[in-house]
């Protein structure tokens, strides 16, 4: 049995090989899952600080230096809050839903390569694993809404689920572009395929589609119409209070950062950067890129207005889905043409910069062409809609598609 590192040391120390292997895996699990759990505590503070700055406020600044202990204060408050379970609720499912919701996000981190040498599991189907695990979250929301036995919760859950499943289609079609370029589902191989050129230069449109739909998957602004925390009751988690609500909340925060990390891995080269062979530097690159993307997500969240559900649905079915399918087909066509002409390497993992440059240029130009076309069409559609409604503000938000 393969048993390196800690496991080997344990066996030499006289432990049972099976037990040693289990223990080493267990320690690995705790280490890997510890990273998202620690990050989420930091993220909540960062999110509040950034939101405050964007809205010209100061943000939390009382507890600890610069308010850095605010999250712990909130945690203590949540721990001592009374936890009300409505009598009409289905108790088992009501209690299971927040656990599944949180677990569905933590589970994604099992396949994330932190450095070239440190990762949880190196699965052959890593990218598909992420899509599959993320779909557990949808079921958790459905269960939460149903088990609360509340009309608003159920209706909220139905709307979230309809939104989530809709936006999963462009998400996966956009994800298929880097997979096709790299020719593998393995997360490490996808990163190595970008060693001479990041995929964002070959598929900027797929990157944008992935970013938009993953933002929608987290249910945040401008897609937070179901929660609408400033106007409506909270949607599917209306009956949840105390720590159980806190778990839904933490899962959402973690999901945003997870999406930033995934975007980094699929399009921005993961831990690739100067001196990435050093584990610490590689980890720093991953963290830096993901933090920048996370900041952009926060920026979008705090500046873009909330959309109505019909607008969100229309935006998805009449704009994102066809564009993502068209993008996939166009990339496939160009890639195959260039490969047949000998202008593109078939294995990107070992290709040099000179070999990938022609295909990058062609794909980049094609992507920019589509983006220009879409923007032109949006402009004309938007103008005609504004004229038709007499300059109503609502028509500006989503003027895509038909």
């Amino acid at each position: 049995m393969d048993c390196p590192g800690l496991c080997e040391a344990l066996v030499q120390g006289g432990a049972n090989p099976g037990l040693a292997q289990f223990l080493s895996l267990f320690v690995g699990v705790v280490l890997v899952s510890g990273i998202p759990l620690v990050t989420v505590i930091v993220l909540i503070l960062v999110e509040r600080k950034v939101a405050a700055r964007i809205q010209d406020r100061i943000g939390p600044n009382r507890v600890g230096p610069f308010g850095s202990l605010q999250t712990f204060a909130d945690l203590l408050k949540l721990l001592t809050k009374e936890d009300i379970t409505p009598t009409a609720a289905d108790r088992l499912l009501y209690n299971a839903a927040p656990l599944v919701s949180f677990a569905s996000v933590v589970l994604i981190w099992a396949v994330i390569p932190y450095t070239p040498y440190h990762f949880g599991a190196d699965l052959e189907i890593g990218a598909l694993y992420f899509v599959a695990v993320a779909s557990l979250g949808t079921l958790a929301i459905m269960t939460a809404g149903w088990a609360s036995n509340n009309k608003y919760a159920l209706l909220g859950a139905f709307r979230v689920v309809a939104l989530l499943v809709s936006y999963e289609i462009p998400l996966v079609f956009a994800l298929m572009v880097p997979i096709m370029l790299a020719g593998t589902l393995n997360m490490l191989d996808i990163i190595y395929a970008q060693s001479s050129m990041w995929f964002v230069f070959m598929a900027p449109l797929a990157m944008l589609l992935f970013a938009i739909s993953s933002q929608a998957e987290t249910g945040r602004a401008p897609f937070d119409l179901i929660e609408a925390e400033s106007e409506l009751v909270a949607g599917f988690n209306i009956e949840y209070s105390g720590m159980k609500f806190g778990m839904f909340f933490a899962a959402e925060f973690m999901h945003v950062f997870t999406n930033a990390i995934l975007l980094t891995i699929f399009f921005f080269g993961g831990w690739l950067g100067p001196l990435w062979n050093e584990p610490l530097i590689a980890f720093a690159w991953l963290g830096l890129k993901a933090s920048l993307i996370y900041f952009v997500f926060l920026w979008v969240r705090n500046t873009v207005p909330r959309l109505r559900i019909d607008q969100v649905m229309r935006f998805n079915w009449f704009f994102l889905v066809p564009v993502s399918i068209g993008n996939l087909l166009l990339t496939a066509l160009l890639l195959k043409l260039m490969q047949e002409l000998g202008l593109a390497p078939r294995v990107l993992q070992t290709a040099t910069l000179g070999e990938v440059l022609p295909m990058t240029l062609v794909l980049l130009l094609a992507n920019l062409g589509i983006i220009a076309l879409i923007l032109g069409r949006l402009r004309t559609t938007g103008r005609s809609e504004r004229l038709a409604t007499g300059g109503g503000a609502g028509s500006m938000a989503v003027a895509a598609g038909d």
Partner: protein
Amino acid sequence: MEILNQWAFIGIFAVMAPIFPALPILIAWVLRPSKPNVLKSQTYECGVETVGDTWVQFRVQYYIYGLVFLVFDVEMVLLFPWAVAYNRLDFFAFAAGLLFIFLLFDGLLYAWRKGVLVWR
């Protein structure tokens, strides 16, 4: 066995993952006050008494969104191997993928034409 070792990690992870959120909930269960009363544990409905049954009839459009998603999801399942193997294949693979997606797109086009994807 190397592969199963990776999956053993996922297995332990899957058992551990719900325990992480369960721990704070358990701690809260010990710490929190618990004074339930009839009014407090009623179903919340904007402050007024709950009216009628929760299992209200929903519109069929939710089902149709789920249906279209299911079809796309299964199509994606077959497209994933196609995308992974794409670099190894010749031009015929593109034609096969194009036809596959074209057939799928027909269904989407039908749904558009019937207007079932417009939220109402």
